[in-house]
C-alpha cells in the first residue's frame, strides 16, 4: 500500500479507476457507460492517492446501480491557470432506493485535500440538469513541496 501522505501521479490514479470500472462493468454490463475526458490531463500532476477512486465508486453506487436505464459517468481531468481540475459526474437519481449515505467519503476526501493543500484546494458538489457533479480543484504540482 502506498503511503497515504505522499502524493501520487494522476495517471496512476486514473489507471486504478479504469481497473475498478472494468470490474464494475462485468457486473453491470451495458448499464454502466463511462466517458473519459483526459486528453488534456497533465499526466505528471500529483494528487493525493485514493481521492479519485472513491468518488468514481460513489458515482456507480448512487448514479448507476439504482437506475433501470443505462447511465453515463463522466470523468474530466484538465489543467487550467496552474490548477488541476477533477470533475466527476453521474446521473442524479432523485428517489434513490439506496441508502442515502452519510457523506463520509466526501468528508474524508475533503479533509485529505485540506491536509495536503490547505485552502488552495476545494471540493464542490452540485446537482444540475439531472446530473450530480463533484468538482475538485487543487494546485498543479509535479514534485513534492
Amino acid at each position, binding site marked *: 500500500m502506498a503511503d497515504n501522505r505522499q502524493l501520487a501521479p494522476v495517471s496512476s490514479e486514473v489507471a486504478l479507476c479504469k481497473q475498478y470500472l472494468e470490474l464494475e462493468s462485468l457486473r*453491470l454490463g451495458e448499464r454502466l457507460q463511462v466517458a473519459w475526458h483526459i486528453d488534456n490531463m497533465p499526466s505528471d500532476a500529483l494528487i493525493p492517492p485514493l481521492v479519485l477512486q472513491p468518488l468514481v465508486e460513489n458515482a456507480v453506487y448512487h448514479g448507476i446501480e439504482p437506475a*433501470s436505464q443505462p447511465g453515463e459517468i463522466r470523468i474530466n481531468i484538465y489543467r487550467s491557470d496552474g490548477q488541476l481540475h477533477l470533475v466527476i459526474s453521474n446521473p442524479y437519481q432523485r428517489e434513490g432506493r439506496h441508502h442515502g449515505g452519510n457523506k463520509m467519503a466526501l468528508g474524508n476526501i475533503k479533509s485529505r485535500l485540506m491536509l495536503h493543500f490547505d485552502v488552495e484546494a476545494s471540493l464542490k458538489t452540485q446537482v444540475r440538469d439531472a446530473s450530480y457533479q463533484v468538482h475538485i480543484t487543487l494546485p498543479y504540482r509535479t514534485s513534492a513541496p
Partner: protein
Amino acid sequence: MNNPLRVLIVDDEAPARNRLRDVLADCAAALPVEVVGEAANGIAALELLQSIATDVVLLDIRMPGMDGLELAQHLARLATPPAVVFTTAYDSYAIQAFELSAIDYLLKPVRAERLAAALRKAQAFGPAQAASLQQAAPQPRQYLSACERGRILLVPVTEVIYLRAEQKYVAARTASRTYLLDESLVNLERELAQQFVRVHRNSLVARDAIEGFVMRDGADDSEEAAGWVVLLRGLDETLPVSRRQYAVIRQFKR
C-alpha cells in the same frame, strides 16, 4: 414429486444469474431442478411468471426499478403464486427486516447446500404471505397491482389520482381508467401516507393531484350533501370531503 422443481432466476446482474445457474446445476444430484427462465428486473419477471409455470423464484432483493420485495408482494396476488427464495448481498437493514418477519433468504455468495435446503423449504412451505412481505419492505411500493381476468396489471402509484373504497374492493382511479384492487384502504393509507391524504371515510387523494377545494351547495345535486369537494388535476370528477377531514383543506390552502 418426481418432476423437477421449476425455478425462475431474477437478478439485475448477469454474473449473479450465471452463478445461480451453476449452483443450481450443482444441486441437481440432491434435488432435481429445471431453470425455466431468467429475468433482469421485476417487471420482466412478472411477465414471465404469467406465462411460464414456476414453482420457485430465486429473487434478488436489490434491483433497480422494482426491487425484489415489491415484486414478491405483487406475486402473492397470482392465482397460484410461486414460492420465493430471496437472495441478497450483505445488507444489515434487509437482514434485520427479514429476521423480524420470518422470511427466508440466502446470503450471497450462494452455496449449493444452502440453496438446496432453501428450495426444499420453499417447496414445503409455499409462498410467503403478502402481509409479512410488506412488513419487511423498507419503503412503499412503486406500483399497485390489480388482478384482471387472471392477469396482474401494474399501476404506477404516481399515476393514481385517488383511491376509493367500494364494498369489497378499492378503486384506484388514474387519468385514463379505474382499476380494482383487492386491498384495504386502511393498509393503503398507512403504506402511502407520504403521497396520499384521506379526505373522506372512503377515499384517499394523491397530494399532487389536489387542484383545490370548492364549497358545493347541495341544492342542485340531490345525491350529495352540501359541503366541500376536492377538485382533481386531470379529472372532471370531484370527491366529497367529509366534515371531519376539513382540516385537510386548511393544510392545502396557502
